[in-house]
């Protein structure tokens, strides 16, 4: 089957010639009309629409947005905060960047609708420090919106007030973790909090009930407020509704960002048709489907089992190319949809070295708070680095996996899984390469691109 066409809702105006990121252009294209309609509705109704829509978070966890909102403690008497996670640091992910740089008002409208729906009077956009222009663009856009009463003490003359401030990060991946982000916003070292008891919905920013949502997720909220939850749920596939932006990078002809209905495109269609297939003379070897934290898929492996389609259990027998790009399918075959960052590696890549690159990333980014991740991530990096630059032993692959097994599930936050899954999956699926790495080096195989 040929690949479906893109369905650009969130990215409708990205790279559009003549589309600028100022308020006038946005309003000209119908901007803030959805917000006006939303503000005429009871806030609880808007929460309901989001629940009905089945929208799942687009930051990486895929947690249902409506459920997240409904967990908010609305009775504590404390102010409720919205924190926009614009930290976009998951390797392989590059989508929120374009929303914020080219279409910031779409985000602001999504924010203001979300705030209204959840009685939020103060929102912060936590934007990664490496987007300095993005921060300035957002601040300018907020100022424009404030001048037009789309943000501020008296939004749309309704008497409801909500302010947005931009807060810049400074180069830490762990600030993408929701409680790490909250600690960073509070001006401390971004050490994620233990849950229980510090669930953001109850004890979040300044120990007040807080929602943390990804940039893309909030843009989908705006769209849901526009067309309704039911209509949104008809897009995509059951339980994996709406569209999502897939970011493809690495060894394909046409890397880039593409917005598709969730689950309506397969890996093979995405990589071969949309992205033009492998580079000349090369074949696909491996692909990470959801950001570097996701477990890797090896071209050639097959996935068999039964899955629910509608009301029935149906057999599936998939090659990597056949896997639909949705949260549930990817979860079912042992990886995840994550942030939508698809990284492709071809047959020129040595998996030991690719893993060494990834392990160096996680060792660098570990905040250091809890023992398994702090010590384990650095140990895995040291093993990988020694394999590549020093003496590799045949048992090092198993040692790596054994270290990773001691991290996942034992840490304060999901960074433990994030740094363990790559090692576990690379060694599991490419174990022979790890075993034979020392020999291969001795045999003086031609130097591939340096990865670490």
């Amino acid at each position, binding site marked *: 089957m040929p690949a479906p066409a893109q369905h650009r809702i969130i990215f409708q105006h990205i790279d559009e010639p003549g589309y600028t990121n100022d308020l006038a252009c946005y309003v000209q294209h119908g901007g803030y009309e959805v917000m006006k309609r939303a503000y005429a509705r009871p806030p609880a109704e808007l929460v309901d629409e989001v629940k009905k829509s089945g929208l799942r978070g687009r930051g990486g966890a895929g947690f249902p947005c409506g459920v997240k909102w409904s967990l908010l403690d609305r009775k504590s008497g404390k102010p409720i905060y919205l924190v926009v996670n614009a930290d976009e640091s998951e390797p392989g992910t590059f989508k929120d960047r374009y929303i914020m740089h080219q279409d910031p008002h779409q985000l602001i409208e999504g924010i203001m609708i979300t705030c209204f729906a959840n009685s939020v009077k103060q929102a912060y956009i936590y934007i990664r420090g490496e987007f300095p222009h993005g921060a300035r663009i957002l601040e300018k856009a907020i100022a424009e919106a404030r001048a037009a009463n789309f943000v501020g003490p008296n939004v749309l003359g309704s008497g409801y007030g909500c302010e947005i401030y931009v807060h810049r990060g400074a180069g*830490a991946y762990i600030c993408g973790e929701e409680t790490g982000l909250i600690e960073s916003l509070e001006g401390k*070292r971004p*050490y994620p909090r*233990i849950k*229980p*008891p*510090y669930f953001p919905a109850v*004890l979040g920013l300044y*120990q007040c009930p807080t929602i943390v949502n990804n940039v893309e997720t909030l843009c989908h909220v705006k769209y849901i407020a526009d067309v309704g939850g039911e209509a949104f749920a008809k897009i995509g596939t059951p339980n994996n509704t709406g569209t999502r932006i897939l970011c493809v990078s690495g060894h394909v002809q046409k890397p880039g960002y593409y917005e598709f209905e969730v689950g309506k495109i397969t890996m093979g269609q995405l990589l071969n048709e949309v992205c033009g297939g492998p580079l000349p003379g090369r074949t696909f070897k491996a692909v990470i489907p959801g950001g570097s934290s996701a477990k890797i898929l090896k071209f050639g492996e097959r996935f068999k089992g039964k899955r629910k389609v509608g009301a029935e259990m149906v057999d599936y027998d998939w090659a990597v190319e056949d896997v639909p790009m949705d949260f549930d399918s990817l979860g079912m075959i042992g990886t995840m949809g994550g942030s939508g960052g698809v990284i492709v590696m071809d047959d020129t890549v040595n998996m030991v070295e690719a893993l060494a690159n990834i392990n160096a990333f996680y*060792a*660098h*980014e*570990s*905040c*250091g*708070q*809890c*023992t*398994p991740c*702090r*010590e*384990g*991530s*650095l*140990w895995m990096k*040291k*093993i990988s680095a*020694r394999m590549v630059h020093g003496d590799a032993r045949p048992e090092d692959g198993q*040692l790596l996996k*054994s270290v990773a097994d*001691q*991290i996942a*599930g*034992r*840490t*304060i936050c999901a960074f433990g899984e994030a740094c363990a899954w790559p090692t576990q999956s690379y060694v599991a699926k490419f174990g022979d390469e790890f075993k034979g790495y020392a020999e291969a080096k001795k045999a003086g195989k031609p130097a591939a691109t340096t990865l670490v």
Partner: protein
Amino acid sequence: MIAPAQPELVTVNIDGKEIAVPKGTNVIEAARLAGVDVPHYCYHPKLTIVGNCRMCLIEMGLPAVDPATKAPVMDPATGKQKINWIPRPQIGCATNASAGLHIRTQTPQVKDCREGVMEFLLINHPLDCPICDQAGECKLQEQSTGYGRGYSRFIEQKNVKPKRTLLGPRVMLDDERCILCSRCIRFAKEIAKDDVLGFIDRGSYSTLTCYPGKKLENNYSLNTVDICPVGALTSTDFRFKMRVWFLKQTNSIDSESSVGANTVAWSREGVIYRLTPRRNDEVNDTWMADTGRVLYKSITAADRLTAVKVNGADSALDLAINAAGELFKSSAGAVAIVGSGRSSVEEQFLTKQLATALSAATHLVSRVGPGDKILVSADRNPNVRGALVTGLISALPAAQLNALGAAIDAGKVKTVVSVGEDLFAAGLNATQLAKIAVVYLGPQANATSEGAKVVLPTLTVFEKSGTFVNQQFRLQKFLKVVPGVSGATDDLVVLSKLVAAIGGAVPSDLNPLWKVLAAEVPALGTVTFANLPETGLLLDGTPWAALPFVEGETLHFKPAAQPAAVTA
């Protein structure tokens, strides 16, 4: 956030054993009550919970209930309520006991968690045991023996961090040994109220430090050494002096102030090497002030009295006692006694006996300083209340002995017995001292002991046993740690001999003495020295409730009314 325990009891199941604990009890404490050890590093009962060491990971389960009806779901296999075991291990320190909570600590998964955490803690840990003061009381040693895998798989280069840096005058820091549990940081901020410690850099390179130029020098800095589970923070005073497994532990009380912090004195072969706090949740939790820890040095201070003297010449104890007796007889009716707020209850009782026998007026000298609101109170005498309870005094002492001075000027007092007090410092002048004869008992020399007619060297608090009554009116006992220095005699022996010298008789041994004490002092009716609990006994302080005590608020103590103005 992690709420304190409430008195309502709930039943929890730990490794198959049911036990009732107060609702909200921390799971690590609940396990302790059930006799199960849950190893941990970062958890401390008196600090906030951070859950970062991950050593206390255990399996937890909660009783299954139907989400709609809340009715219990039964397990057909066991006939009991089904337990939903959480697949992911949970940290015990962040969980409070609730009804039906089930814990498993002996499963393969828990064993693997512990071995994993131990392995991780050791891979960057330096091989310092042979030169590390913590050896023998090191949690890393204990838990790697108890729960570790026993061998290392790490062949990479270990991280290098600053070693043996002086974090403050009393604390040495070795960053390589640090396991980043953050107990010290939390202590400095939450208890000592001196937010001076922090972690810099990131990941496994994180390092404990002060801001350059600042020091960990508050008066509670040594508590960080106590709570550091490893040898990262060590005491500069104790550094390299002794291996802890050679030391004997004896319970004592900090005599620095009326807080009466409970302590442990560590000694070997008659020498004390260090003092550490002893846990008492009613008095000092697990803390004590740094200034209290150096008091053991008074045993070997240069000004220690070691020779009995009569008229300035060396003498023997009984000869000196006779000389004192003669003085008493010759100045019958004109003797005054300056007792001490640093004497034990027993000594104050005997002092009172002596005073009664001599019809002598009794005085006490006050010692007042600024209270730090933590564990040093404004009253720097540890036992003024003991003097009240035994009847030695009936009003609070003043800093100056004005009444005594007036009596001396008027010729009404010819002999003064001073129990460890320097009368010059207490306001008497040389003229007055010239008019009287002084019988001096005490451990340390001073201007008064220099000119005393009879000098009877006695013991420091570490060389004798006794009790103090602290600011809470809590009776607490301290035990003899080391033998008295040669030449000094137990205060109780000296006092009872003085009483005997004028025809009276009181026991000097603690147990028989307490029988007399209990009979004569109503507040102490049922107490014996032997049965006094380790955590002390609260006495009824209402007879003295109206007195203007100087103490302000400290840990576990709130004054009844406004504290008196501090008199110099």
